[in-house]
């Protein structure tokens, strides 16, 4: 009997463990649907290049993933921990993902966008590009992992995966030396962002604490903001996202929006305590938000203005985080992907869709029960009027681009099912914008700062009215809206001149050491070092 009881207890324990284990698998399941579908598409392309059901496979995988996201709601919060790195004495942080309200709303937005891209892609010229679909699905999977990453180590790995994927994809699709160079520069700024996250990790280690987003030391939070700001082009203000890409509407939209939300997600997980640097960072974020919003309002079309939309929205998310409101950062991130996704994927002339798109303006309004209702619950202080102006500029720009029909394709020549799939794809994103204002996360059903929202909405209305009447608001010519503005070029020129000076210095040192008298110089240096060291030893 004595032997049986522990065994039975062990079995019960194992069963409980299994039950505890299974919710954590939900994160993996949502990603695996996307990854496996992407792999299936690649294999299909390799072995059955003429298969006509590739799109169905892609859309089916994305739909399953979207469906699985609702299962998260029944188990949240839960963790997924991957096998620990060894030796454990050296690697104290596990690879950890957490599903909670914040990660759910972002992951849901990403899967909705992924599915929507596949639904709307049927009307586009690159419709038969199954590799682009595979890329979209992979990005979606990585995006889910990024937004549910629960410590800096996990986030570092996912950011790196996204950056490498983007680098390879972009380099294989853009043409011309300048565009290639721009892609590499964009990669370098994101790598610098990774560097800041790593530095935050090191700072925490120096303080002797294990670093996860819940138990973060007070002095490192600001580095997370800088890391995200750097990756999104807010600190310093620049446009890391080029407007040139062969796949701008479908895959290009996924690449831009998922990449941005993956960077912003960190702000939704942490409460940034105010430091001396906070007002400075808020000031620069406001400058970026107003600049992005202004240029977005005046952009000739949505795709050319997309880099400014990203900078404007990212700045608003950063401001929310800096004001001590992680919920707001998550709300802006979700709006960036859902509202922006609907706008950038709408490539067809459809008056009803254009009107329905105004739901996006509601989602961006921060009015009670909207998606961004929780946006301004933090302390904005004397920056408040400027924040309202920035928000109004971004929303007015959105309304202008949403109501614009010229330059878009018609669906008259398309088969009837594609004429249906396209609006369904856009409609899905609009539906989720409304839905997430009401259910599923901590930012839902919020009244928020309604007075501020009302003022911002009135200002938005005024800007939309004015933009049709005053030349000041006329669209700037498309070639002005490039990824390399004059001011940015001046910064780059400055950096290059420093680089060239350092190059000359290093060349002088190397010529001395590698020249004919190099060995003598080397021994001289060595004698000097030895003298210093022996002096030190005494």
């Amino acid at each position, binding site marked *: 009997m004595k032997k049986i009881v522990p065994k039975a207890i062990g079995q019960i324990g194992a069963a409980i463990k299994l039950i505890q284990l299974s919710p954590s698998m939900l994160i993996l399941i949502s990603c695996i649907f996307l990854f496996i579908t992407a792999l299936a598409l690649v294999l299909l392309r390799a072995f059955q290049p003429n298969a006509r059901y590739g799109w169905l496979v892609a859309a089916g995988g994305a739909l399953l993933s979207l469906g699985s996201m609702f299962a998260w709601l029944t188990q949240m919060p839960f963790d997924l921990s991957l*096998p*620990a*790195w*060894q*030796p454990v*004495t*050296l*690697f*104290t942080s596990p690879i950890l993902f957490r599903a909670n309200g914040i990660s759910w709303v972002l992951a849901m937005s990403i899967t909705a966008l992924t599915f929507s891209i596949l639904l709307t892609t049927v009307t586009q010229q690159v419709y038969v590009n199954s590799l682009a679909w595979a890329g979209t699905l992979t990005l979606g999977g990585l995006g889910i992992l990024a937004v549910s990453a629960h410590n800096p*180590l996990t986030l*570092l*790995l996912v*950011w*790196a*995966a996204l950056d*490498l994927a983007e*680098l390879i994809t972009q*380099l*294989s699709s853009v*043409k*011309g*030396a300048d565009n*290639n*160079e721009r*892609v*590499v*520069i964009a*990669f*370098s700024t994101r*790598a610098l962002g*990774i*560097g800041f996250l*790593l*530095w935050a*990790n*090191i*700072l925490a*280690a*120096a303080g*002797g604490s294990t670093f996860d987003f819940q138990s973060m030391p007070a002095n490192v939070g600001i580095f997370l903001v800088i890391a995200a700001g750097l990756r999104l082009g807010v600190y310093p203000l620049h446009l890391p996202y080029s407007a040139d890409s062969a796949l701008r509407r479908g895959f290009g939209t996924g690449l831009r929006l998922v990449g941005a939300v993956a960077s912003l997600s960190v702000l939704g997980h942490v409460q940034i305590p105010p430091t001396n640097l906070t007002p400075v960072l808020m000031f620069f974020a406001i400058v970026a938000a107003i600049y992005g919003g202004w240029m977005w309002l005046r952009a000739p079309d949505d795709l050319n203005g997309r880099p400014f939309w990203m900078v404007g929205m990212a700045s608003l998310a950063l401001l929310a985080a800096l004001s001590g409101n992680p919920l707001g950062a998550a709300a802006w991130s979700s709006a960036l992907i859902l509202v922006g996704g609907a706008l950038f994927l709408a490539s067809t002339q459809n008056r009803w869709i254009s009107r329905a798109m105004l739901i996006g303006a509601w989602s961006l309004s921060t009015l009670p029960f909207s998606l961004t209702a929780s946006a301004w619950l933090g302390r904005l202080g004397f920056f408040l009027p400027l924040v309202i102006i920035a928000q109004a500029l971004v929303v007015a720009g959105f309304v202008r681009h949403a109501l614009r029909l010229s330059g878009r394709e018609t669906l008259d020549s398309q088969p009837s099912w594609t004429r249906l799939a396209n609006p369904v794809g856009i409609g899905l994103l609009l539906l989720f914008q409304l839905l997430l204002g009401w259910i599923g996360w901590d930012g839902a059903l919020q009244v928020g700062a309604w007075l501020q929202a009302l003022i911002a909405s009135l200002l938005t209305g005024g800007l939309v009215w004015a933009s049709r009447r005053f030349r000041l608001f006329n669209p700037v010519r498309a070639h002005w809206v490039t990824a390399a503005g004059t001011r940015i070029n001046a910064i780059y020129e400055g950096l290059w001149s420093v*680089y060239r000076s*350092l*190059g000359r210095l*290093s*060349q002088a040192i*190397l010529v001395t*050491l*590698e020249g004919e008298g*190099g*060995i003598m*110089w*080397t021994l001289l*240096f*060595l004698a000097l070092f*030895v003298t210093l*060291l*022996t002096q*030190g*030893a*005494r």
Partner: protein
Amino acid sequence: MSAPILWIVLPFGIGVLILFLLRDRFSAWIGGGTAAILSLIALIFPIDTALLVGSISVKIAPAIQFFGRSFELNTADGPLLAAFYGLAAFWFFGTEASGTANRFVSLGLMIVSLLTASIAVEPFLYAALLLMTAAMLVIPLLVRSYQKPGKGVVRFLIYQTMAMPFILFSGWMLAGVEGSPGNLTATTQAGTMLGLGFAFLFAVFPLYNWIPMLMEESSPYATGFLLWALPTFTAIFALGFLDRYTWLRTTPQLANAILFSGIFMIASGGFFAALQRHLGRILAYAAIAEVGLLLVAMGLRSSEFVEITFLTLIPRGLELTVWALALSIFKREAYSLRFSDVQGLAKKYPAATIALSLAHLSMAGFPLLAGFPPRLALWTELAAQSLTLSLWVIIGMAGLLAAAIRTIAVLVMTDLETKWSLTETWVQTAMLGVGVIGLFILGMFPQAMQPFLASLPTLFEHLGQ
């Protein structure tokens, strides 16, 4: 069968046979196969333990005597041998893809066996001589018989030769210091001698100027092999010194000297790498920074420093192999490897470009790649000791990252409307592919190295205790 015969005499003999009997085509497979089999044996069969294989009892004896000296490989050496011969196999298989002559495989096998002998020999001071002999054998790898040796080769030889008297002399002095630890003058002199010897062997600043010169004038694959093999065994040799002499372990000045030498190598390596316009020289400075990392790991005042040192060694071998192989492929097209000559080659050699970029990013500590976990461990330990020193390491790595970004930009920048095409042979693509997969596996699952690393600290009796 004894372990020294299996892992020292046998590969040396096969190396000699390949040199005189075999053609290029077969040498890569036979050399690589030999190293791979020796690696597997080291992994599967523990030394000095009887195993029953069917009805046959197998036991690999640990030691042999040779002219009064003993060569001894113990159970703890098994994982080290497995890792070292495994990486050597990758280098030898790569010769087929890199197009280097059969001399590489034959001399490479001899060098590997001599380096193995250096960890087995007793008294251990003889390791210095074996390291020197291995360094001499590298010369025919770097210079063809009809070529005049370049300045880099000459300097390499000079510096390696200068290291020997310092090491041997310090070994003699150390025995005296052990006898009278209170004699401060003798201690300082012995420490200085030893430091100088290892400064030459590790090529610390400013003694590393032969490395970029060599990269410019010799085959990148052969130089890469040299940059992998010699520092690896020099590090184990240095750990042996620290293990044997208590006063070396406990002298804070020495630990500081090692630490600061490493930091200086990382920072200067990163600085110079970022400013180079030659792919080979960039690899040279990255390898210098890597040795700097090894030194920083050895200079840590932490009980984990042996683990971190060994954790750095395996990714380092893989990174250098992949990088050197990719460079050899480029060198066939653009002999000089200057930026102006390799510009836009990515479209023609996509596999080599991806492999080179990833190996480079890995050395810069980019997450997801093999170099990241050891650097993370190092940063974490170092940060607890000094945040300023951590910052310098990060600055050095940032220099390497800048060099990687410049390299990628140069390789992809072209206005020509050429299409992407895979010009590499299938062997080259396969070798690069395996290397790249390895970089990702070690980057995402560093625990994959645990079978090799777990028991390595037991090689040393006192370190890390």
